[in-house]
Protein backbone atom coordinates (compact mmCIF):
# COMPACT_ATOMS: atom_id res chain seq x y z
CA UNK A 1 0.00 0.00 0.00
CA UNK A 2 1.26 3.48 -0.77
CA UNK A 3 0.46 6.65 1.20
CA UNK A 4 -2.39 7.57 -1.11
CA UNK A 5 -4.07 4.20 -0.50
CA UNK A 6 -3.57 4.53 3.27
CA UNK A 7 -5.12 7.99 3.10
CA UNK A 8 -8.11 6.59 1.21
CA UNK A 9 -8.48 3.81 3.78
CA UNK A 10 -8.27 6.39 6.58
CA UNK A 11 -11.11 8.47 5.12
CA UNK A 12 -13.17 5.41 4.23
CA UNK A 13 -12.86 3.90 7.70
CA UNK A 14 -13.63 7.27 9.28
CA UNK A 15 -16.81 7.60 7.24
CA UNK A 16 -18.07 4.21 8.40
CA UNK A 17 -17.00 4.41 12.02
CA UNK A 18 -17.71 8.08 12.54
CA UNK A 19 -14.37 8.83 14.21
CA UNK A 20 -14.20 12.61 14.67
CA UNK A 21 -11.96 15.07 16.45
CA UNK A 22 -14.52 15.28 19.27
CA UNK A 23 -14.38 11.54 19.71
CA UNK A 24 -10.61 11.66 19.70
CA UNK A 25 -10.78 14.23 22.51
CA UNK A 26 -13.27 12.06 24.39
CA UNK A 27 -10.96 9.04 24.13
CA UNK A 28 -7.94 11.06 25.23
CA UNK A 29 -9.96 12.37 28.14
CA UNK A 30 -10.73 8.79 29.18
CA UNK A 31 -7.10 7.70 29.21
CA UNK A 32 -6.36 8.42 32.87
CA UNK A 33 -9.64 6.85 34.03
CA UNK A 34 -9.24 3.69 31.96
CA UNK A 35 -5.49 3.15 32.33
CA UNK A 36 -5.63 1.62 35.85
CA UNK A 37 -8.05 -1.03 34.53
CA UNK A 38 -6.39 -1.89 31.23
CA UNK A 39 -4.49 -4.90 32.59
CA UNK A 40 -7.80 -6.34 33.94
CA UNK A 41 -9.48 -5.88 30.57
CA UNK A 42 -6.56 -7.56 28.85
CA UNK A 43 -6.46 -10.44 31.35
CA UNK A 44 -10.14 -11.07 30.96
CA UNK A 45 -9.82 -10.90 27.14
CA UNK A 46 -7.14 -13.59 27.13
CA UNK A 47 -9.00 -15.72 29.66
CA UNK A 48 -11.90 -15.96 27.20
CA UNK A 49 -9.56 -16.57 24.25
CA UNK A 50 -7.80 -19.39 26.07
CA UNK A 51 -11.16 -21.13 26.41
CA UNK A 52 -11.68 -21.10 22.65
CA UNK A 53 -10.06 -24.28 21.30
CA UNK A 54 -9.25 -22.74 17.93
CA UNK A 55 -7.57 -19.72 19.54
CA UNK A 56 -5.63 -21.38 22.32
CA UNK A 57 -2.76 -22.80 20.18
CA UNK A 58 -1.87 -19.28 19.02
CA UNK A 59 -1.49 -18.09 22.59
CA UNK A 60 0.43 -20.68 24.57
CA UNK A 61 4.14 -19.95 25.02
CA UNK A 62 3.67 -16.24 24.40
CA UNK A 63 0.80 -15.19 26.60
CA UNK A 64 2.75 -12.67 28.69
CA UNK A 65 4.29 -11.03 25.64
CA UNK A 66 0.91 -10.83 23.94
CA UNK A 67 -0.70 -9.29 27.00
CA UNK A 68 1.97 -6.63 27.07
CA UNK A 69 1.52 -5.91 23.37
CA UNK A 70 -2.21 -5.81 23.84
CA UNK A 71 -1.96 -3.34 26.69
CA UNK A 72 0.22 -1.06 24.61
CA UNK A 73 -2.32 -1.21 21.81
CA UNK A 74 -5.14 -0.33 24.22
CA UNK A 75 -3.14 2.68 25.39
CA UNK A 76 -2.95 3.83 21.78
CA UNK A 77 -6.75 3.50 21.51
CA UNK A 78 -7.10 6.07 24.28
CA UNK A 79 -4.35 8.33 22.92
CA UNK A 80 -4.80 8.99 19.22
CA UNK A 81 -4.26 10.72 16.93
CA UNK A 82 -6.27 8.55 14.58
CA UNK A 83 -4.62 9.64 11.41
CA UNK A 84 -2.31 8.12 8.83
CA UNK A 85 0.24 6.71 11.31
CA UNK A 86 -2.45 4.91 13.29
CA UNK A 87 -3.91 3.43 10.09
CA UNK A 88 -0.48 2.28 8.94
CA UNK A 89 0.28 0.76 12.32
CA UNK A 90 -3.05 -1.10 12.49
CA UNK A 91 -2.77 -2.28 8.91
CA UNK A 92 0.63 -3.72 9.85
CA UNK A 93 -0.87 -5.36 12.95
CA UNK A 94 -3.48 -6.95 10.67
CA UNK A 95 -0.65 -8.16 8.47
CA UNK A 96 1.18 -9.68 11.45
CA UNK A 97 -1.96 -11.68 12.25
CA UNK A 98 -2.33 -12.75 8.63
CA UNK A 99 1.29 -13.97 8.66
CA UNK A 100 0.65 -15.78 11.95
CA UNK A 101 -2.22 -17.46 10.04
CA UNK A 102 -4.93 -16.36 12.43
CA UNK A 103 -8.42 -16.86 10.99
CA UNK A 104 -10.05 -13.59 9.97
CA UNK A 105 -13.03 -14.07 12.31
CA UNK A 106 -10.66 -13.77 15.28
CA UNK A 107 -10.43 -10.06 14.58
CA UNK A 108 -14.18 -9.32 14.69
CA UNK A 109 -14.61 -11.79 17.55
CA UNK A 110 -11.85 -10.10 19.57
CA UNK A 111 -13.28 -6.65 18.98
CA UNK A 112 -16.66 -7.85 20.24
CA UNK A 113 -14.99 -9.17 23.40
CA UNK A 114 -13.00 -6.01 23.99
CA UNK A 115 -16.00 -3.80 23.28
CA UNK A 116 -18.08 -5.64 25.88
CA UNK A 117 -15.35 -5.41 28.48
CA UNK A 118 -14.75 -1.71 27.86
CA UNK A 119 -18.49 -1.01 28.02
CA UNK A 120 -18.67 -2.77 31.38
CA UNK A 121 -15.71 -0.75 32.61
CA UNK A 122 -17.17 2.55 31.38
CA UNK A 123 -20.46 1.58 33.01
CA UNK A 124 -18.77 1.42 36.39
CA UNK A 125 -16.68 4.56 35.83
CA UNK A 126 -19.67 6.66 34.74
CA UNK A 127 -22.43 4.94 36.67
CA UNK A 128 -23.83 8.28 37.83
CA UNK A 129 -23.14 10.25 34.64
CA UNK A 130 -25.35 8.81 31.88
CA UNK A 131 -24.44 11.47 29.34
CA UNK A 132 -20.74 10.89 29.78
CA UNK A 133 -21.37 7.17 29.60
CA UNK A 134 -23.13 7.47 26.24
CA UNK A 135 -20.46 9.78 24.92
CA UNK A 136 -17.62 7.48 25.92
CA UNK A 137 -19.37 4.29 24.78
CA UNK A 138 -19.94 5.91 21.36
CA UNK A 139 -16.31 6.96 21.11
CA UNK A 140 -15.08 3.47 22.05
CA UNK A 141 -17.41 1.86 19.53
CA UNK A 142 -16.21 4.19 16.83
CA UNK A 143 -12.52 3.68 17.35
CA UNK A 144 -12.81 -0.09 17.73
CA UNK A 145 -14.92 -0.28 14.56
CA UNK A 146 -12.40 1.92 12.79
CA UNK A 147 -9.50 -0.26 13.94
CA UNK A 148 -11.29 -3.46 12.95
CA UNK A 149 -11.94 -2.14 9.45
CA UNK A 150 -8.29 -1.31 8.98
CA UNK A 151 -7.08 -4.66 10.33
CA UNK A 152 -9.51 -6.59 8.19
CA UNK A 153 -8.35 -4.72 5.13
CA UNK A 154 -4.96 -6.43 5.43
CA UNK A 155 -6.75 -9.78 5.50
CA UNK A 156 -8.69 -8.84 2.40
CA UNK A 157 -5.65 -7.78 0.40
CA UNK A 158 -3.62 -10.72 1.55
CA UNK A 159 -6.45 -13.10 0.55
CA UNK A 160 -6.65 -11.45 -2.86
CA UNK A 161 -2.88 -11.67 -3.26
CA UNK A 162 -2.99 -15.36 -2.40
CA UNK A 163 -5.79 -15.99 -4.90
CA UNK A 164 -3.95 -14.09 -7.59
CA UNK A 165 -0.82 -16.17 -6.95
CA UNK A 166 -2.89 -19.31 -7.37
CA UNK A 167 -4.49 -18.00 -10.56
CA UNK A 168 -1.10 -17.11 -12.05
CA UNK A 169 0.29 -20.52 -11.16
CA UNK A 170 -2.65 -22.32 -12.76
CA UNK A 171 -2.75 -20.26 -15.95
CA UNK A 172 1.03 -19.99 -16.33
CA UNK A 173 0.72 -16.22 -16.72
CA UNK A 174 3.58 -14.11 -15.47
CA UNK A 175 2.93 -11.32 -12.99
CA UNK A 176 4.01 -8.79 -15.62
CA UNK A 177 1.53 -10.18 -18.14
CA UNK A 178 -1.23 -9.99 -15.53
CA UNK A 179 -0.30 -6.37 -14.70
CA UNK A 180 -0.29 -5.48 -18.41
CA UNK A 181 -3.67 -7.13 -18.86
CA UNK A 182 -5.08 -5.28 -15.86
CA UNK A 183 -3.72 -1.94 -16.99
CA UNK A 184 -5.09 -2.47 -20.52
CA UNK A 185 -8.54 -2.68 -18.95
CA UNK A 186 -8.14 0.20 -16.52
CA UNK A 187 -11.03 2.59 -17.02
Amino acid sequence: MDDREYEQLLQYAKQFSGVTEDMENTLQGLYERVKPHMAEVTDSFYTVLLDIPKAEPFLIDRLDALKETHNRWMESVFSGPFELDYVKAMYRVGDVHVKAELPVEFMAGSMALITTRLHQLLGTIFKDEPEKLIESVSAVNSILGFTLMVMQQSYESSRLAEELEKFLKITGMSRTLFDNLASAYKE
Partner: protein
Amino acid sequence: MREDMLASILSDLNGSSADIEASAVISTDGLIMASLLPANLDEDRVGAMSAAMLSLGDRTASELTRGSLEMVLIKGSQGYVVMTHAGEEAVVSVQAKSTAKLGLVFLDIKRAAEAISKVI
Protein backbone atom coordinates in the same frame (compact mmCIF):
# COMPACT_ATOMS: atom_id res chain seq x y z
CA MET B 1 15.08 -1.09 -37.00
CA ARG B 2 13.71 -4.27 -35.46
CA GLU B 3 10.30 -2.65 -35.31
CA ASP B 4 10.52 -1.86 -39.03
CA MET B 5 11.40 -5.45 -39.83
CA LEU B 6 8.51 -6.74 -37.74
CA ALA B 7 6.15 -4.26 -39.39
CA SER B 8 7.31 -5.43 -42.79
CA ILE B 9 6.72 -9.10 -41.87
CA LEU B 10 3.21 -8.20 -40.69
CA SER B 11 2.59 -6.24 -43.83
CA ASP B 12 3.60 -9.26 -45.94
CA LEU B 13 1.38 -11.46 -43.77
CA ASN B 14 -1.67 -9.22 -44.17
CA GLY B 15 -0.96 -8.94 -47.88
CA SER B 16 -0.53 -12.69 -48.32
CA SER B 17 -4.24 -13.34 -48.07
CA ALA B 18 -7.37 -11.26 -48.33
CA ASP B 19 -8.70 -13.41 -45.47
CA ILE B 20 -6.30 -11.85 -42.96
CA GLU B 21 -7.69 -8.60 -41.59
CA ALA B 22 -5.26 -7.68 -38.84
CA SER B 23 -2.13 -8.91 -37.13
CA ALA B 24 0.24 -8.09 -34.31
CA VAL B 25 3.51 -9.22 -32.77
CA ILE B 26 3.38 -9.22 -29.01
CA SER B 27 5.90 -9.95 -26.27
CA THR B 28 5.01 -12.92 -24.05
CA ASP B 29 4.38 -10.30 -21.33
CA GLY B 30 1.59 -8.89 -23.48
CA LEU B 31 3.17 -5.72 -24.89
CA ILE B 32 2.73 -4.88 -28.57
CA MET B 33 6.02 -4.95 -30.51
CA ALA B 34 4.47 -4.22 -33.93
CA SER B 35 0.93 -4.22 -35.23
CA LEU B 36 -1.34 -3.71 -38.19
CA LEU B 37 -4.67 -3.35 -36.48
CA PRO B 38 -7.86 -1.50 -37.38
CA ALA B 39 -8.25 1.81 -35.56
CA ASN B 40 -11.19 0.57 -33.47
CA LEU B 41 -9.05 -1.99 -31.66
CA ASP B 42 -7.10 -1.03 -28.55
CA GLU B 43 -3.49 -2.18 -29.02
CA ASP B 44 -2.87 -2.72 -25.32
CA ARG B 45 -5.93 -4.94 -25.00
CA VAL B 46 -5.14 -6.96 -28.11
CA GLY B 47 -1.59 -7.45 -26.84
CA ALA B 48 -2.36 -8.45 -23.28
CA MET B 49 -5.38 -10.58 -24.19
CA SER B 50 -3.49 -12.50 -26.90
CA ALA B 51 -0.52 -13.23 -24.67
CA ALA B 52 -2.86 -14.33 -21.87
CA MET B 53 -4.77 -16.65 -24.21
CA LEU B 54 -1.56 -18.17 -25.46
CA SER B 55 -0.32 -18.70 -21.93
CA LEU B 56 -3.57 -20.44 -21.02
CA GLY B 57 -3.34 -22.43 -24.27
CA ASP B 58 0.13 -23.62 -23.29
CA ARG B 59 -1.21 -24.80 -19.95
CA THR B 60 -4.28 -26.46 -21.47
CA ALA B 61 -2.27 -28.34 -24.09
CA SER B 62 0.06 -29.75 -21.49
CA GLU B 63 -2.64 -30.43 -18.83
CA LEU B 64 -4.76 -32.29 -21.37
CA THR B 65 -1.72 -34.18 -22.66
CA ARG B 66 -1.81 -32.64 -26.15
CA GLY B 67 1.93 -32.05 -26.27
CA SER B 68 3.49 -28.65 -26.80
CA LEU B 69 1.21 -25.88 -28.00
CA GLU B 70 1.20 -25.04 -31.70
CA MET B 71 -1.57 -22.48 -31.83
CA VAL B 72 -4.70 -21.15 -30.19
CA LEU B 73 -7.71 -20.78 -32.46
CA ILE B 74 -10.79 -18.78 -31.53
CA LYS B 75 -13.83 -18.83 -33.79
CA GLY B 76 -16.42 -16.13 -33.37
CA SER B 77 -19.48 -15.39 -35.48
CA GLN B 78 -17.56 -12.54 -37.14
CA GLY B 79 -14.33 -14.41 -37.77
CA TYR B 80 -11.23 -16.01 -36.31
CA VAL B 81 -8.40 -15.09 -34.00
CA VAL B 82 -5.30 -17.26 -34.34
CA MET B 83 -2.37 -17.00 -31.99
CA THR B 84 0.95 -18.77 -32.03
CA HIS B 85 4.42 -18.46 -30.55
CA ALA B 86 7.09 -16.71 -32.58
CA GLY B 87 10.19 -17.98 -30.82
CA GLU B 88 10.42 -17.99 -27.03
CA GLU B 89 9.79 -14.32 -26.48
CA ALA B 90 6.95 -13.36 -28.79
CA VAL B 91 3.42 -14.15 -29.88
CA VAL B 92 1.76 -13.55 -33.27
CA SER B 93 -1.92 -12.79 -33.17
CA VAL B 94 -3.93 -12.74 -36.38
CA GLN B 95 -7.54 -11.88 -37.11
CA ALA B 96 -9.14 -13.52 -40.11
CA LYS B 97 -12.52 -13.37 -41.84
CA SER B 98 -15.21 -15.90 -40.95
CA THR B 99 -15.00 -17.23 -44.50
CA ALA B 100 -11.21 -17.68 -44.36
CA LYS B 101 -9.58 -20.84 -45.67
CA LEU B 102 -7.91 -21.83 -42.45
CA GLY B 103 -5.29 -24.18 -43.92
CA LEU B 104 -3.79 -21.37 -45.96
CA VAL B 105 -4.03 -18.88 -43.12
CA PHE B 106 -2.20 -21.32 -40.81
CA LEU B 107 0.58 -21.69 -43.36
CA ASP B 108 0.98 -17.93 -43.72
CA ILE B 109 1.04 -17.48 -39.95
CA LYS B 110 3.61 -20.22 -39.52
CA ARG B 111 5.85 -18.61 -42.11
CA ALA B 112 5.48 -15.20 -40.46
CA ALA B 113 6.18 -16.65 -37.00
CA GLU B 114 9.42 -18.20 -38.25
CA ALA B 115 10.50 -14.91 -39.80
CA ILE B 116 9.63 -13.02 -36.60
CA SER B 117 11.54 -15.44 -34.39
CA LYS B 118 14.66 -14.76 -36.49
CA VAL B 119 14.30 -11.01 -36.00
CA ILE B 120 13.69 -11.11 -32.24
